């Protein structure tokens, strides 16, 4: 097991280097806005652009730039400085991480709890009115993009532009340390919007998995033993949840992608909006930093999910 974890972590690091290289190529080699031009003001003199490029290190050859970046990241934990605000990328991310964590954790809880419980209830009464309604709604939520859902939510419930003015609207986020109640209410809409798609996918997965499991022989055995129906269902859920754990990790990536859009629409000062703004401003260093952070989360989540799988299913052994 230990050997397995070490091997997975080493692979994870290799993967991060590859992600680094890909973002590097994506934003510097392929034609995007030249950050030096963007920063030089209107009608800039060519020598000014040259000067800015020199300051930002953009005049060096691409392999040198890449090598310098990797050295900074892996040797000094230095992710560079924003072209735009001159602040260190680490500081920028650190400042914004609490908001993103608030958003992601809350959405994650809603996602798992709502997804699994709706799936379980649907599976136990397949083709009932509840099941059809829930699965129909799930299909809509899977198909709807987050930014659209976010706008609809604002138009329905926000205090400023909503039809039912019950929840704080865009830009109302405050850190939990400042005002816990406002923190909570301002995040209700973003949480649900961000969780909606993933929860819907999980409800459908859980439903399918549990319906199959409830047909298994060991469920018949559980009933034949005289266990209460509640315990029988618990045994079914225990077995049905296993294949879904692996998908949990995959879905975290989708959730982080959604966070960029949700933070942007709800104007939450998180890492997602930082990334969005960085893309708008061709702020390469910040893009690199946020992409690396997100990749790291996804890689860690996958390792954790695989390890959790071994604990959940005694038949799985890693070597």
């Amino acid at each position, binding site marked *: 097991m230990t050997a397995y974890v070490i091997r997975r972590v080493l692979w994870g690091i290799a993967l991060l280097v590859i992600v680094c290289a890909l973002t590097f190529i994506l934003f510097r080699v392929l034609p995007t806005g030249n950050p030096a031009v963007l920063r030089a003001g209107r009608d800039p003199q060519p020598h000014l652009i040259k000067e800015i490029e020199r300051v930002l290190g953009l005049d060096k050859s691409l392999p040198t730039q890449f090598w310098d970046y990797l050295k900074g990241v892996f040797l000094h934990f230095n992710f560079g400085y924003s072209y735009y605000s001159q602040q260190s990328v680490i500081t920028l991310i650190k400042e914004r991480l609490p908001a993103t964590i608030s958003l992601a954790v809350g959405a994650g809880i809603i996602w798992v709890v709502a997804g699994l419980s709706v799936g379980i209830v649907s599976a136990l009464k397949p083709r009932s009115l509840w099941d059809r309604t829930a699965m129909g709604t799930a299909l809509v939520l899977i198909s709807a993009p987050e930014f659209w859902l976010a706008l609809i939510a604002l138009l329905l419930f926000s205090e400023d532009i909503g039809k039912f003015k019950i929840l704080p609207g865009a830009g109302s986020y405050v850190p939990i340390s400042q005002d816990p109640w406002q923190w909570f209410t301002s995040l209700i809409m973003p949480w649900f919007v961000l969780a909606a798609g993933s929860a819907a996918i999980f409800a459908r997965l859980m439903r399918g998995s549990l319906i199959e499991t409830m047909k298994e022989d060991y469920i018949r055995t559980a009933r034949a033993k005289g266990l209460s129906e509640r315990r029988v269902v618990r*045994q079914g859920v225990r077995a049905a949840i296993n294949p879904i754990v692996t998908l949990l990790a995959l879905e975290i990536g989708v959730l982080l992608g959604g966070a960029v859009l949700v933070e942007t629409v709800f104007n939450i000062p998180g890492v997602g909006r930082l990334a969005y703004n960085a893309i708008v401003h061709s702020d390469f260093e910040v893009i690199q930093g946020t992409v690396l952070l997100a990749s790291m989360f996804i890689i860690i989540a996958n390792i954790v999910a695989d390890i959790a799988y071994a604990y959940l299913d005694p038949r799985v052994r890693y070597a």
Partner: protein
Amino acid sequence: MSAAEPATLPEPGASGEALLRVEDLRVEFPSEDGVVHAVDGITYQVFPGKTLGIVGESGSGKTVSSLTTLGLTRLQGANVSGRILFEGRDLVALSDGEMRTIRGNDIAMIFQDPLSALHPLYSVGKQLIETMQAHHSVPKKQAKERAIELLGLVGIPDPKRRVDAFPHEYSGGMRQRAMIAMALANEPKLLIADEPTTALDVTVQAQILALMERLQSELGMAIIIITHDLGVVAEMADDIAVMYAGRIVETASADAVFSNPEHPYTWGLLKSIPRLEADRSELLVPIPGTPPSLINRPSGCHFHPRCAYAQPDHSRIDPALEPVPGDPGHYVACLLEAEVRRKIWAELQEGARPQEAIAEVGLEDTAPGLEETSG
């Protein structure tokens, strides 16, 4: 619908009151293609400490009738009628809650494939303990000790260590032993074993049957053994019921079924088992055709399309289970004359083929699809 048969009830034998008495039990499943008549008016009884073998092909209703005894088919939406008297209580009339207190407690069941019948993610010990705790308030420590004791009782080596192992860490035979241990956890009065040896190696089969016999003599429980394998019932059963298309077509003591079988289907079953002591030139005679659909069953005698001895009017008349003259406790549902049946069986025992036997007794040969098949 079939012609309703009178519920001919075999008289109680010497052992007195029956533990389980099934009367005119019918189980029907509504389906998209029509009503499935899985069990169609069967009557049998099991005496305390005795073994009843229910024999038949797959789809003959033998498993469904047993699951119904446990109240498990109605959970799947089956229509159940008739009576299942267990110690005088009618199980068909009990509520789901009352039925649950009997399942796994007074009546326990073991299944064909022990690997799929055990939960893969719980240790064997945990599955044993929850069986006890579902019916009795036993402290966990005590339950675990009892689990170890039970595993030892069914012959699992090193039960102290094995109790924490998972089903996939057991061998096939050990899994079935663990299933039996689980069934015995609450000392049931009746154990239903549904094809308990079918999924096992031949050598292990004999061990499991010997184990069940030993436990029966030690614990005094009654057993219903469901199988398609006459070899299994020959070894274990006191009485045998032969099922075909949801009905019992012949029932008698095991000795009577093996020495004087009365139903052509039973003959077919007996003649299709290879025997070591038989003359090697003796051919196996398979039963032609396949079991009928339980939605659209053949008219008249349900067996007539596959019966070598069927006469023209057998496709119209539905036979009832009736006593065999001169053999008390032996019942058969066959339209042939008792005298004719006896002659045919005598011919068959001498190695005659069905066609030869027909010619010998002067019956009309209407056998459909009965082609020469060498074994």
